[in-house]
């Protein structure tokens, strides 16, 4: 395992989480914890992927990490009285699959990049593959973050 790579990613995860936390106007006193949530999420995901040699699907690793961030946010929320979303939303942001989304769109559009009748089936299927990965990861993030709420707050009926 490349520990320097993990450390760098954790730092960058903290930076990304803090930046987006400020964009979302998170209260000042929650900012440090947002950074920690961001770093923890990215780190757990990399460790899960590397420790298993890629046997775990990235969406599953992302779901586990988002779940951890969500539970961490629940605990922080209990302590500070701020809603868990204050921490969890910024915390999962660094896991957004920007690379997959980018390559999927560019591949997809490159099948229509000139006036020719023919198109490249390989490029097309690659684009679909990347889009499926990006969607799975996004769904994993959103479901992971919603999970504690679905598990713990069942007593009150929906309004």
């Amino acid at each position: 395992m490349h520990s320097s790579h993990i450390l760098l990613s954790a730092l960058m995860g903290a930076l990304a989480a803090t930046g987006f936390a400020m964009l979302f106007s998170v209260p000042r006193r929650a900012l440090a914890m947002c950074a920690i949530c961001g770093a923890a999420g990215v780190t757990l995901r990399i460790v899960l992927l590397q420790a298993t040699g890629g046997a775990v699907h990235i969406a599953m690793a992302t779901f586990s990490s988002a779940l951890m961030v969500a539970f961490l946010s629940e605990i922080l929320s209990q302590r500070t009285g701020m809603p868990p979303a204050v921490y969890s939303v910024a915390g999962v942001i660094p896991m957004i699959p920007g690379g997959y989304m980018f390559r999927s769109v560019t591949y997809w559009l490159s099948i229509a990049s000139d006036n020719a009748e023919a198109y490249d089936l390989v490029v097309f299927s690659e684009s679909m593959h990347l889009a499926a990965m990006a969607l799975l990861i996004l769904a994993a993030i959103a479901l992971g973050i919603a999970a504690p709420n679905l598990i713990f707050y069942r007593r009150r009926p929906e309004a």
Partner: protein
Amino acid sequence: MSETRNFTRKELNRMAKVLLKAARILMENGAESRRVFETVREMARALGLPQTDVLLTHRSVIITVAAGDEAVTRIVRVGTLGVNMEKISEMSGVFRQLSAGEMTPDALEAALDALARREEPYPNWLRMIMAALACGGFCVISGGDARAFVSCALAALAGLLLRRAMMLAHFQPMLSVFSAAFLSASLATLFTRFTGSAAPSAGVAASVLYLVPGVPMINAVADLVKGHLMTGLARAMTVVLTAGFVASGLVLAMKLWEFNY
């Protein structure tokens, strides 16, 4: 407050107005539907209202408060949808004070008005710089080098400035998103080329990530899985539209500047 007491029509009207203020603040600052529903319902209970019903759509809130033979229905239009976690967080504080019985309806209205007017916790320049650095962070996470980091952060900063300027000039939000994506991707393409970055596509991809609607995306899924289909679908559609405009700006820039990924 106590058991069911009688409310005059005027009082009910007043209560409906105050509850809508709370709902509007939550909606405008990025709360999920469940939080809006629960806050309004619990506040109504704390105010002693026997029956309250709320209907949320993506850009308006309708409320009916009833007591005895009287019922009042009001509707409020929800303005620009932004994200401000501090306001959402402060709302829990207001609610706790109210349910502890420390607030009269007048005090509640005053607190809500103060909350609505509350200033952003960070100066704009700082938010933009930090958001630009966050995009740089994304770039490194997805395999970018130091040169890609710098290119990406500068390109994102330019796009953030453009988007802010266009917002202030009241351009259509989607047009601002498209223009900002185009500018950021163009500059990222040129900067990564100029600096000779080894991972230009990580830099270009991350330069538009500040435009990705993260909060609506998370709220859309939260709403959908919790049964708020109407607001969930509206939010999901907003996400798809925004993502489409970001992708268009990005691809147009890459075509124009002949970026080879």
